[in-house]
């Protein structure tokens, strides 16, 4: 299968993506800025190193790796990486969340080029990923593609995540990689002050998953770990726990739950871009 290794510096991709996230939510006047900033390096590593068979602007390859943004509110980051990878023009990001736009508040596979699965209600993506992986496992013509599902650590409070974890783990389902963007925050509080999913690694392991851990803001390390998880997933499901910071890259957003679903105003945008581009 065609492996879309690009030679672009992942740190530059990450910087560009952060800039687009700030510009997107600022322009829309809303959007999930914090959780988009925490997933930046994960998306950069996936879309510029790890995912096979991408064909931006062309016909979809049925053998391509699949990606599901289960933390579906983090679309500013998702659409940003799709734009940077060439699925649609970067300028289109300014239509985010506006009437008639292909870029809906939450991912819509029927509207947005490059989106493999509609999501938005937390907890569903991993189960959808099970369906993709089960399809790849039983239909040779699909070329044994691998499905990556990105979740939040707060999302692990949803019960369906554990229905999926139990199913895939107990049945040793191949071709499925779960990624946890473990930024430690959720909408209204820290994750630890809520229904705390820690220790995350031990939970996935006990459900029968191979567990990998990575610095979620080191894109090269992430690319290596995601590659390792991709390879390991031929024997069963793999989970990559990426330790991240919500709002990463903008000092006044980092670690602040209030930036979960908030857009920067004009001066905040300028300050944020200054930090990101410095």
């Amino acid at each position, binding site marked *: 299968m065609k492996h879309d290794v690009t030679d672009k510096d992942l740190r530059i991709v990450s910087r560009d993506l952060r800039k687009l996230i700030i510009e997107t939510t600022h322009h829309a006047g809303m959007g999930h800025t914090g959780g988009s900033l925490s997933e930046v390096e994960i998306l950069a590593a996936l879309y510029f190193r790890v995912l096979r068979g991408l064909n931006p602007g062309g016909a979809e390859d049925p053998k391509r790796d699949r990606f599901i943004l289960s933390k579906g509110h983090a679309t500013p980051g998702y659409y940003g990486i799709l734009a940077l990878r060439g699925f649609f023009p970067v300028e289109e990001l300014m239509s985010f969340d506006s009437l008639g736009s292909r870029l809906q508040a939450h991912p819509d596979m029927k509207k947005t080029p490059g989106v493999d699965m*509609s999501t938005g209600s937390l907890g569903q993506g991993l189960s959808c990923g099970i369906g993709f992986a089960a399809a790849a496992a039983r239909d040779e013509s*699909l070329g044994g593609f691998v499905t990556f599902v990105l979740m939040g650590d707060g999302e692990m409070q949803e019960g369906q995540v554990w*229905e999926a974890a139990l*199913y895939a783990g107990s049945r040793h389902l191949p071709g499925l990689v779960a990624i946890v963007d473990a930024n430690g925050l959720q909408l209204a509080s820290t994750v630890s002050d809520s229904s705390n999913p820690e220790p995350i690694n031990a939970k996935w392991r006990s459900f029968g998953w191979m567990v990998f851990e990575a610095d979620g803001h080191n894109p090269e390390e992430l690319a290596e770990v995601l590659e390792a998880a991709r390879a390991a997933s031929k024997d069963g499901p793999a989970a990559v726990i990426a330790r991240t910071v919500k709002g990463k890259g903008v000092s006044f957003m980092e670690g602040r739950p209030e930036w979960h679903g908030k857009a920067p105003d004009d001066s905040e945008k300028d300050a944020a871009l200054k930090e990101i581009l410095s």
Partner: protein
Amino acid sequence: MIGERIAQRRAFGRALVEMAPDYPKMLVLDPDVCTSTQTALFREAFPERFLPMGIAEANAVSAAAGLACCGFIPWVSAFSVFLAARALDQIRVSVAQTGLPVKLNAAYGGLPSGRGGATHSSVEDLAVMRSLPGMTVLCPADAVEAGAMAREAMRISGPVYLRTVRCEVPTIFEDDFRPEIGKAVVLNEGSDVAIVSEGMMSARALEAAKILKNEGLGVRVLHVGTIKPLDEAAIIKASRECGALLTVENHSVLGGLGGAVCEILAESAPCRVRRLGFPDVFMESGDDEAIFSRFGLDAEGIAEAARNLAGIEEQSGEGHEHSRNQ
């Protein structure tokens, strides 16, 4: 054979097995109810195409959507209450919003749930399912139509909610009957009053029509096997030609067939309407027929409601107790 009592789930299970060779991409996902919903027949015949999903409807529905993205046509076969209520969010986002060809076999629809009482009686599911854009909602009258609709569901490009009942129901259609999705069927001609019924209630509506025929009342029985898309023309025609219309459903009177019919008639062809179904209460344990009778959902109760609606009082002058519950 007409009149023979057969369980729809049996017909459904058989239809899956019979269709399987024609649809190599068809799969069955089972949240641990296959011996009840009769997809165990499929498990026996095509074990490699049968996915035991454990007692986890939400995971099963979303996984089915993922499979459907990759060219498979999955049936999720479960109790209707645990699809329409428990897995509603998954059906809404992963299945209806995407328009994927996920087929939902909603067994144990309505009251007959094996004496399951309030938790297992699925009397709100039609209201919920018909409100989802793009969802086709089917309620076959008997085993013949259940099997035929399973086949029709495979020809529909999007999602389908096929609702059957647990109990045995009398056969009203000949073996070669082929339902047309979106078309109601006139089971009995008449123009004094119309009974518009769904699913297993249509056999009872026919019985009621026979009772009333002996009293000189011409009852049109319109079987609505497709709740969505609804055959609006047939309902408007019944309203205009009969002037009075009784809806009968194995479902709450809120938002199901009665609600759907009223939505159309209020805008296009108002007439006297009465809705027969379960009132706004939770079901309780007990014999199915005793509960049906309590709410006037037996042939006598339907006949009485239609009689009253037509404006002809019962000659004996004594009404049935159960009708007062409506």
